[in-house]
């Protein structure tokens, strides 16, 4: 919205030459994107010519824009239809991520706990074996040919017998179903022992833990009554990392950024690099669970987070001069920007994955459209509950009106701001986040923190993409992700 925008003259639009595009002023240029995820940078002069249909048809720029579907009378329909299908292939799959909360008990008291976990005495929040069996049966009803069962909590290892049962029962069922089955354990690792690890390793379970940075920062965020959470996490991270080094199931760590993290961007990246991690996920805090009540102490504005993100990201680019080390949010966006593949990250796609890409199962068998929606249940709001494994059917669950409402709310074509945004082909909104922040699943993007963060990150990525050296780095990040995909097709 700078003064330079006055180069625009809607009257000059040639509706026969210029195909559909969205635009955004970025630095000295206009960024243009289209429905097929293609993008281009145009100077003011070229932008005016493009809009008016007066670009030289013999120019390299014209050829590039024609190839990428920006020139209406040179549109290759078959290629664009194929590209659109590829980018939206998740629409044909059904729920593939199944989050199973085997207990709400936890031995940590993290200051931002978004699950509102209970203390170790709360045994009434443990999932029973009978409920677990019904959960697995319901999971295998999914139409998706690929399934991921993800253990969440609480701390899942607190209810180890049920974790073990679900792994064994799911593997048994899959011998008949023949799906691509992945199992993830999300754990603080403090209750891991050799016997549990051996069972999980033998069953090819992926591990995911939380690591909020160096010890002082991590232990400030993640309070563990039994001692240093950081020490326990690092000990098992190193063991699992070493033993799964050449496996396609592995351990990864996730960062939650609090206000205390903001001045520590480089320290956090160094911590991950020092551990041998392949990358880091600079994840902003959500206003759910405990975080909601103490937001004034641990939260921040979108602009504060973006300052942190840019500092960390630029430092990561420096590190990439020596070794490949990715940032996960960037990798998700870059995969969408630089390929025709959608990485199917359920929180950043249109429509979002709630109910049509993922389902969450609470300890009592309650079924929720997504894990964030299940978290609202802990806040006394059953808005996102879509049934129970003890009643109804799979068909009733996935046809629930709540799922339809969320799909409509998260379809960016229905969003007043998103439908016109240049970043629409790469972005996604979370109706549960909108509900938490603004009290409305439809959301209002001009005042959405998440929207500002996404726009800020995408601005930064496109600025960096203009440098060919960075583009080569980004292609390596994407290649790593693709290698994982090809394995999962086997």
């Amino acid at each position, binding site marked *: 919205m700078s003064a330079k*925008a006055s180069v625009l003259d*809607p009257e000059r639009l040639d509706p026969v030459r210029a*195909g559909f595009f969205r635009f955004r002023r970025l630095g000295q240029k206009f960024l243009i994107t289209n429905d097929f995820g293609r993008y281009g940078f145009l100077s003011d002069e070229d932008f005016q010519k493009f809009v008016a249909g007066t670009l030289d048809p013999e120019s390299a720029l014209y050829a590039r824009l024609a190839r990428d579907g920006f020139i209406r009378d040179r549109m290759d329909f*078959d290629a664009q*239809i194929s590209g659109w299908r590829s980018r939206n292939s998740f629409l044909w799959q059904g729920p593939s991520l199944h989050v199973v909360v085997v207990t709400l008990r936890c031995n940590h008291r993290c200051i931002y706990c978004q699950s509102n976990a209970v203390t170790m005495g709360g045994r009434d929040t443990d999932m029973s074996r009978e409920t677990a069996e019904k959960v697995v049966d319901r999971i295998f009803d999914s*139409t998706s040919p690929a399934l991921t069962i993800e253990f969440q909590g609480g701390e899942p290892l607190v209810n180890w017998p049920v974790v073990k049962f679900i792994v064994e029962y799911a593997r048994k069922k899959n011998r008949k179903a023949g799906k691509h089955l992945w199992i993830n354990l999300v754990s603080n690792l403090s209750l891991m022992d050799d016997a549990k690890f051996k069972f999980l390793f033998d069953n090819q379970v992926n591990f995911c833990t939380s690591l909020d940075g160096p010890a002082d920062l991590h232990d400030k965020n993640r309070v563990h009554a039994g001692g240093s959470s950081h020490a326990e996490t690092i000990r098992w991270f190193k063991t699992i990392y070493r033993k799964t080094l050449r496996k396609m199931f592995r351990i990864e760590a996730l960062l939650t950024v609090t206000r205390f993290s903001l001045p520590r961007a480089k320290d956090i990246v160094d911590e991950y690099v020092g551990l041998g991690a392949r990358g880091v996920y600079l994840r902003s805090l959500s206003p759910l669970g405990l975080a909601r009540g103490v937001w004034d102490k641990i939260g921040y504005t979108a602009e504060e987070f973006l300052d942190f993100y840019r500092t960390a990201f630029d430092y990561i680019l420096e590190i990439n001069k020596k070794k490949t080390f990715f940032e996960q949010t960037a990798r998700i966006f870059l995969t969408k920007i630089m390929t025709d593949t*959608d990485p*199917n990250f359920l929180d950043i796609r249109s429509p979002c994955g709630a109910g049509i890409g*993922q389902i969450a199962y609470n300890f009592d068998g309650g079924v929720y459209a997504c894990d964030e929606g299940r978290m609202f249940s802990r806040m006394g709001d059953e808005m996102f509950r879509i049934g129970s494994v003890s009643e109804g059917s799979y068909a009733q669950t996935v046809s629930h009106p709540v799922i339809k409402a969320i799909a409509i709310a998260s379809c960016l074509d229905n969003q007043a*701001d998103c439908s016109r945004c240049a970043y629409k082909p790469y972005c996604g909104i979370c109706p549960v986040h909108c509900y938490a922040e603004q009290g409305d699943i439809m959301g209002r993007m001009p005042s959405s923190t998440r929207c500002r963060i996404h726009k800020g990150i995408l601005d930064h990525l496109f600025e960096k993409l203009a440098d060919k050296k960075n583009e080569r780095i980004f292609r390596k990040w994407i290649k790593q992700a693709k290698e994982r995909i090809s394995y999962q097709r086997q």
Partner: protein
Amino acid sequence: MTETTAQELKLKVDSGVYPMDAIQAAAYTFSDRVYIRIARNGGGKEVSLSLKRKAGGADLAAISDEFHNELLHETLRHRISQANKKIREFIVTKALVSAQVPSAPPPATPAETSEADCPECAAEAAQAASQQPAAPVDAELEKEIEKLLSEIEKSGPGGDPLGVAVPWEKKFGAKSKSAAARPAAPKTKRAPKKGKKSR
């Protein structure tokens, strides 16, 4: 015409110059900073906007300048959208229909249509592109869309044309019986990665 006071910015816009959709879209963009009221003056084309400062204090003079630029942005967006509406509907409809109508051949993947290994194909494609006539007129596209949509209605059960609510075993049977009839793993599928939800 613009009037600015300490708390309020009043604008008058000609809806004959700026479409009403563009005026509303531009106003929405500022909804994080100001309260907005839009009213049409009488039966004419003049539209009045009142932008009131929210707590925190927006610079109304700056917003006035930005708003006029945003009107241009939104007017251009509106025109682009109107001009390409049918083409976009056609592409999305065809992409969706080709996935579920048994008789429709699947669209070629980028790899299958790659011209990288076939210079002759690339030359032919370039020549064809240069000779390609103007895009089909909207009326023809509309007929094509209606035809595709009627194929969808014929091909699937009402309310669930993709069969997403049909349980796996009911749809495909046991592995030993009908493995060959099952869909292959989707081309872009990966185990969905979810962040740990900060226990």
